[in-house]
């Protein structure tokens, strides 16, 4: 997928891609991991999003968290107001290497070029939440 940073894609397109990605992840991880998408058709048709935003967020969740049959990891994608929310339960891996945060910063930067509404990141012990303004 060749997309420039200042481009946007319809939300519907991005979510279709995430479904395909989810399919692969399910093969890989089985019942240890899942992506649940809760976005109405109307919203999917109406809004746009920076390309590969969701893929990066899902990938981050997998990279930084533990997942097992007993403690599955779940990414939940839904809409609140005019924001797309990507939320996952937090089960951090105790790896010594700390994340550089480049991926998230990249998303923040790209959205800054597209809209005046900022990207919100919220984290606590149980959950990690990213709120993305819908364009």
């Amino acid at each position, binding site marked *: 997928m060749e997309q420039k940073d200042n481009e946007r894609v319809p939300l519907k397109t991005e979510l279709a891609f995430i479904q395909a990605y989810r399919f692969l992840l399910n093969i890989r*991880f*089985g019942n240890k991991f899942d992506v649940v998408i809760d976005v109405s058709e109307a919203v999917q048709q109406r809004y746009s999003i920076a390309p590969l935003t969701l893929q990066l967020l899902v990938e981050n969740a997998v990279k930084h968290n533990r997942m*097992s049959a007993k403690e599955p990891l779940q990414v939940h994608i839904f809409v609140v107001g005019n924001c797309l929310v990507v939320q996952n339960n937090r089960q951090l891996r105790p790896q010594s290497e700390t994340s550089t945060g480049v991926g998230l910063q990249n998303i923040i930067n790209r959205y800054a070029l597209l809209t005046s509404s900022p990207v919100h990141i919220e984290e606590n012990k149980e959950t990690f939440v990213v709120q993305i303004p819908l364009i």
Partner: protein
Amino acid sequence: MNVLIIEDENLTAKRLEGMLTKYDPAIRVLAQLPSVADTVAWLSQPDAPALDLVFMDIHLEDDIGFRIFEQTNLQTPVIFTTAYDEYMVQAFKVNSIDYLLKPINYTELVAAIEKFKALKEQFNSGSTPARNPDLDTLLQLLGPARQTAYKDRFMITVGTKIRSIDTADIAYFYLEERIVFLVTQDNLTLPVDYSLDKLAQLLDPRRFFRVSRQFMVSLPAIQTIYQFSAGKLKLDLLLPRPHTERNAAQVFVSGDRMTDFKEWLGK
């Protein structure tokens, strides 16, 4: 052979199991463990089965595979199977046999298992192996040639004939008009196809010595040594018949070779 597969992705584990069966149906996979916690628990069982080999993925459900070494006393040889190459250095610090990148290639897997078997046999033989072929080759390449065969014969073409001259019969060599000649103890003079420098390489240095630019003499041929002048020695070479006019040139040991000459004589 009893084997443990430590791998969090089920399909990957099954694929590996399939390859192991293909390689040797006698291989028994005792368990497939997806996490550090499960592995530690399995290894800590009081009646834990005997293990020959472990295949370990590094990125496990709950942590990286190396934690297993921190939490148990796993001594069994390990073949790492992983999608990440950045842990290779760490693998060296534990009992790693090999490090295979995913997707695992069957040929590479076989090579790794063969390596394990070879090493196992080496360690099981108790003592260090008598011959380490690689080390021998290395020594051969680096060290001086141990068994140099010094030239013991010269084949010289004379007209249509080839004469064979034993080095033992050669009294000395000399250089004249850019040709090198040998002189035998029978006073036979024959040209040779080597420079004096080259001869120095070919001949036994205990027997022959380059006394000057023109002369290389053999030890048995030296009859008398005279102190000619300060810093110069004259040699009389032992020959059954006197020199002819032609090669009556006096043999001197040049100043710069004096010390080496005396050393050579001393041997």
